[in-house]
């Protein structure tokens, strides 16, 4: 109420003027009626009223809140003084905006991705359950689950949790229809209760039922909202309609809500089509214990705990291991919340980035504080006079705080815009990141923004207010410009701030240096083959159309022949999975010539299907023996080529050529005919022992065409797709990319982290340099007279230069020492983000030190040089 009154003071005042006018008129009239002359009547009326101004004054004061009035007054004053020095104001606002904006953006990401609950009903009860082994670490502590194990788990845990399974690594060819091109899409098999376990359901249509989830059921599919809108223009008529997946007919029974998303540590939110696992998965996959094709989610029933569930499942799994002692059967069960599972890999990087932006914000505050202090110092006479004239010290402090508040509020608003832009960019730059679609501003972010603004305002305001020490006021009035210790204490505090600033900068630069070095290592890792000018194109033959192995092999043979015939193709080959493009499957093997291992034991070899021309096309060196021959196909495809690691693993100290390996799953024996060089399956992962067997035969329906040319290999993407289209118009291709792009894609996270931290480091470096320059320039200006006298008395210019330079560099040196110490403590926290790079990399620490000293030197050189070039006469005359 009184606040309202406060802002309506002006209106109340004009009301009052009217009331007084009326009063005068009425009174005059009465007086006239009493027989006075009009003039006298008016005079008497005025006399009776008394001083109208004092009435106004009284009402005005009654309506005024003193504190608020002061704030408004301070605000007005601040805006006026700031607009008088727009340069200072805009620099300070920009610095604040950078700091607050970066923090806001990262805070939003951390909150949306890492902290916000998943978009399901009661998500805190949802857990992801995995198989694991005793003593497993890292990724192996959370491994996919075998269909057979899941069946037993589900049954035994019925009273504790609802469990569902999903296999999110599936792909379907969508046939060309309605004038649309064929395409390959990411898909998932799931159990009928998967969606209900998550607590969600299709937006239109229905979910899977147990009747759909059986081998003999009619084929059904649920589409993602995005896929439905993109491919079927969001037409609800598709519901109940037929679509062709892998050349088979599926009935669309539901469309998921647009808000639905599912991602895990092993899959992103890319799934477009969901089908029923019980209908899709081969019977043996659903019931074995050694083929791990599924992820499992569990919703705890009320009263149940995750540790209770896990101990129950562990008992079951141990029994399974006892009954089936195969090497690929795991003996333990592990679990973590679905949220942790989805974002585990992003925690360290995102918190690291948040810490980096925190450093930048702190540096920004220190810089603004430093600028404010410089202003205070420049205005010390004015302030002293005001105090002398009776200006309250509290008023002066509140003025200072108002100033820093205005600066950080403007910076905060600008920062909000910057954060908005940064987030848009981030969502585009990191489509690979889980839950990136969940990033948005919310109330918490707004609170954070306001908090950041206030924290910055108070921090920088108090910092600068501390320097306006009351005791100095007299001094600064007395202080003639000859007293050369002028305001040294201001500079002292600023130097302290600078040292802190430099220290933080060093920490940021060291972090950035390590990440960048790690990223460089990663990018220059040898994949095992020359990566330039190689194009890969992936395709999958649908079982329904290419039933017989003869048909599949014939298609592949014709295809590669036609690709090789394209003008400009230097070499081409077929492989099931190209180097750097993923795991591609492994099997347990034994050597036929060696004594049998204990039951279930085996040598874990990654398996690739390769065509005879693949090795020379990819330029994988032949170390021993020979490549495959064209006639080694179909029934005669029982030959194998090992890579060097596999040869060492299977045949240590022996000649593998002519020996035999036996596959556990296929129960077939393969003769080793050659040994080739190692290639990596993922750029950041160590080489895994690999066995190649002919892709012609051995049940391959997937193939990656690799094409090598002397230049501009991307140009072959279209001609090859045209060739495929001519051979089968319903056959889509996927993963059309060069090997270079493959590497770029698998290192996008590292690139992102290292470049961002580097950007923050550079911002910090620039701010620190500006701070160093500012303080030293100020000091030199203060000491103009003193330096003039020194020079007049015969000081050498070099001496003056050295004196000033050392003075300016001292905070940088302190800061460097502090920063290196702090880095040594902190870098260990980012060890998990570093690839083949030690946290205490001496080169990084050394080069950061050198760069920092160079930049600091340059920043200090200009004022020092100016000081040494002072004309003594002029310097003395300026007093």
């Amino acid at each position, binding site marked *: 109420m009184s606040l309202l009154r406060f802002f309506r003071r002006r209106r109340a005042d004009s*009301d009052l003027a*009217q009331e007084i006018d009326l009063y005068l008129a009425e009174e005059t009239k009465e007086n006239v009626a009493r027989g006075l002359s009009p003039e006298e009547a008016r005079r008497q009326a005025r006399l*009776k009223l008394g001083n109208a101004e*004092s009435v106004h004054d009284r*009402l005005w004061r009654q309506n005024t809140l003193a504190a608020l009035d002061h704030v408004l007054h301070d605000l007005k004053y601040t805006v006026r003084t700031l607009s008088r020095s727009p340069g200072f104001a805009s620099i300070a606002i920009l610095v604040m905006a950078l700091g607050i904006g970066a923090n806001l953006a990262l805070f939003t990401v951390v909150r949306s991705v890492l902290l916000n609950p998943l978009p399901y009903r009661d998500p805190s009860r949802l857990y992801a359950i995995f198989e694991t082994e005793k003593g497993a670490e890292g990724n192996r502590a959370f491994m996919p689950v075998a269909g057979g194990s899941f069946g037993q788990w589900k049954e035994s845990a019925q009273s504790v949790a609802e469990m569902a399974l999903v296999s999110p690594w599936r792909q379907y060819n969508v046939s060309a229809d309605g004038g649309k091109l064929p395409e390959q899409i990411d898909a998932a098999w799931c159990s009928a209760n998967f969606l209900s376990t998550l607590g969600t359901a299709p937006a239109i249509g229905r979910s899977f039922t147990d009747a759909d989830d059986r081998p003999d059921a009619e084929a059904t599919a649920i589409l993602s909202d995005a896929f439905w809108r993109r491919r079927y223009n969001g037409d609800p008529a598709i519901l109940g309609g037929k679509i062709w997946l892998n050349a088979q007919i599926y009935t669309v029974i539901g469309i998921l809500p647009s808000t639905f998303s599912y991602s895990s540590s092993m899959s992103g939110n890319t799934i477009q089509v969901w089908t029923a696992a019980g209908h899709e998965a081969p019977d043996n996959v659903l019931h074995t214990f050694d083929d791990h094709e599924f992820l499992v989610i569990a919703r705890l029933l009320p009263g149940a705990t995750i540790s209770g569930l896990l101990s129950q499942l562990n008992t079951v799994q141990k029994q399974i291991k006892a009954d089936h002692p195969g090497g690929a059967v795991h003996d333990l069960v592990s679990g973590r919340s679905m949220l942790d599972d989805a974002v585990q890999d992003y925690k360290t990087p995102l918190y690291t980035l948040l810490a980096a932006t925190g450093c930048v914000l702190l540096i920004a505050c220190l810089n603004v504080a430093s600028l404010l202090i410089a202003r205070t110092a420049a205005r010390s006479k004015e302030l002293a006079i005001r105090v002398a004239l009776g200006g309250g010290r509290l008023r002066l402090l509140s003025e200072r705080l108002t100033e820093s508040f205005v600066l950080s509020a403007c910076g905060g608003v600008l920062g909000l815009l910057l954060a908005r832009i940064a987030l848009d960019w981030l969502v585009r730059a990191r489509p690979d990141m889980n839950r990136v679609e969940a990033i948005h501003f919310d109330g918490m972010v707004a609170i954070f923004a306001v908090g950041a603004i206030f924290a910055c305002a108070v921090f920088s305001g108090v910092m600068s207010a501390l320097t306006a020490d009351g005791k100095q006021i007299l001094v600064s009035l007395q202080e003639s410009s000859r007293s050369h210790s002028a305001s040294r204490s201001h500079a002292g505090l600023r130097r302290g701030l600078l040292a802190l600033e430099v220290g933080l900068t060093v920490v940021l630069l060291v972090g950035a240096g390590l990440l960048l070095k790690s990223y460089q290592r990663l990018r220059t890792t040898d994949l095992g083959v020359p990566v330039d000018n190689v194009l890969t194109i992936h395709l999958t033959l649908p079982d329904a159309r290419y039933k017989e192995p003869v048909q599949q092999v014939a298609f592949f043979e014709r295809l590669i022949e036609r690709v090789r015939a394209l003008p400009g193709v230097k070499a081409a080959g077929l492989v099931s999975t190209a180097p750097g493009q993923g795991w591609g499957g492994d099997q347990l093997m034994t050597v036929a010539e060696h004594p049998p291992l204990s039951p279930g034991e085996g040598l874990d070899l990654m398996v690739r299907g390769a065509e005879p021309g693949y090795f020379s096309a990819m330029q994988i060196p032949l170390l021993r023996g020979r490549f495959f021959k064209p006639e080694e196909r179909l029934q005669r495809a029982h030959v194998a080529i090992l890579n060097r690691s596999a040869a060492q693993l299977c045949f240590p100290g022996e000649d593998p050529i002519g020996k035999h390996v036996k596959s556990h799953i296929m129960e077939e024996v393969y003769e080793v005919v050659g040994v080739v060089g190692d290639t990596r399956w993922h750029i950041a992962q160590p080489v895994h022992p690999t066995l190649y067997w002919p892709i012609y035969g051995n049940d391959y329906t997937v193939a990656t065409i690799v094409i090598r040319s002397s230049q501009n290999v991307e140009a072959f993407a279209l001609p090859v797709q045209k060739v495929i289209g001519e051979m089968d118009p319903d056959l889509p291709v996927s993963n059309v990319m060069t090997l270079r792009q493959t590497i770029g894609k698998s290192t996008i996270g590292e690139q992102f982290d290292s470049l961002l931290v580097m950007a923050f480091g550079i911002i910090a470096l620039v701010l620190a340099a500006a701070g160093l320059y500012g303080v030293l320039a100020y000091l030199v200006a203060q000491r103009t007279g003193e330096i003039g006298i020194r020079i007049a008395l015969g000081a050498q210019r070099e001496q003056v230069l050295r004196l000033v330079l050392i003075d300016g560099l001292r905070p940088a040196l302190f800061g460097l020492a502090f920063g290196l110490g702090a880095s040594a403590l902190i870098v260990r926290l980012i060890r998990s983000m570093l690839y083949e790079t030690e946290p205490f990399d001496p080169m990084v620490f050394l080069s950061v030190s050198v760069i920092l000293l160079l930049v600091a030197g340059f920043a200090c050189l200009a004022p020092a040089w100016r000081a040494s070039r002072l004309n003594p006469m002029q310097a003395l005359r300026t007093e």
Partner: protein
Amino acid sequence: MRKKNEPNAEMLKGTLDMMVLRTLVSGDAHGHTIAKVIEHSSEDVLEVEQGSLYPALHRLEDRGWVSSYWGASENNRKAKFYRLTAAGRKQLAHEKDRWRLMARAIAMVMGEELPANGGKL
């Protein structure tokens, strides 16, 4: 008109608000009328200072005890009229009680007995 001959009637603190509210019981009025009514009712003993009246009116309005509207005065000029609100009526009763208590107490201290219905309020 100033009444220099009367004992200078400095109003007791807080009584102006009460009297203004009391005045408005008999009907809406603007500032001039209110002052006049108080002066007449007190047989010109009390003189309403304009410097206090208008801030008091605004204060009462602010507290919700009176409301105001613009209307035409008896002489057809634009005037701000004040009206007693329900809350104001309650407040008036409350203040009246308090005033009676005070007046009785002071009278007792001064050794005088007030007539049962002291004052015109």
